[in-house]
């Protein structure tokens, strides 16, 4: 049975990973869009993204869209695998007698 991932287990990080893994593998989500969707502050989202980045679960890229600087975030293959294992662990708990 897969174990729960202590990094992803935290509720905000669970939502971040859920959002990022819902997109196609090479898609990147813009920081402000993610922040609004999850109803977080800039600082709160940044802190959790840093933890995920340190774990190698997300990749953060700065880019210009027109003249505006934007931050794009994507789940890495390792992050997707860890999230999938975490979901399997959650399902296993539900199936437990």
């Amino acid at each position: 049975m897969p174990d729960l991932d202590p990094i992803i287990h935290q509720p905000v990080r669970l939502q971040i990973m859920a959002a990022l893994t819902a997109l196609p593998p090479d898609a990147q989500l813009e920081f402000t869009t993610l922040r609004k969707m999850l109803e977080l502050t800039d600082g709160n989202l940044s802190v959790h993204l840093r933890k995920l980045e340190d774990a190698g679960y997300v990749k953060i890229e700065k880019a210009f869209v027109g003249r505006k600087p934007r931050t794009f975030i994507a789940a890495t293959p390792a992050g997707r695998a860890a999230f999938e294992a975490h979901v399997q662990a959650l399902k296993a708990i539900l199936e437990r007698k």
Partner: protein
Amino acid sequence: MNMTRNEAQQSLETIHQVQREIRRTLAIGGAPFYMMLWGAIWFLGYLGSHFLPPKTAGDLWGALVAMGFILSFVIGWKLSTKVRTPGYDARIGIFWLLWIIYTFLIVWLGGFDSNPTLMSLFISIMAMFGYVVMGLWLWTPLTWIGLGVTVIIVLAYILVPAYINLVMAVLGGGVLFFSGLYIYRSWR
């Protein structure tokens, strides 16, 4: 790490909720806007083709299509500020660019431009072919909408050729517009 069944259930529900939300608003969020936009353009353009003199109708089509391309670009631009898929976005853009080039070549070399009705039918069918491809690529319902409207176009041409433009306005444009509106409302 310990977790109760209730907590696990709640976590899974949160995951499903977030993923559903993001898929609706981002990954395929542009589709209803494109459908409403081009549905309205079809409606107005074909209505013009039915009621206006050919020259005026042609001018109207030119203006509507130009506006359609500009607004499509704006929709695409808005979406690209929220989510981007390097490579994937480029492939979609390249597909539509090639679509324009191939459609132009067939219209020109095939002599469709000498018959306005045939030309607009051909371009409409090609547009629906684009929907079918986008559906296979991005979101399956687009394929069914593309195939459905193509059937309407062909049947109208065979059964009521005198009213083809009116049928195209109401059924072709209408199906596109209201499918887009339905998807937009059901996703909100």
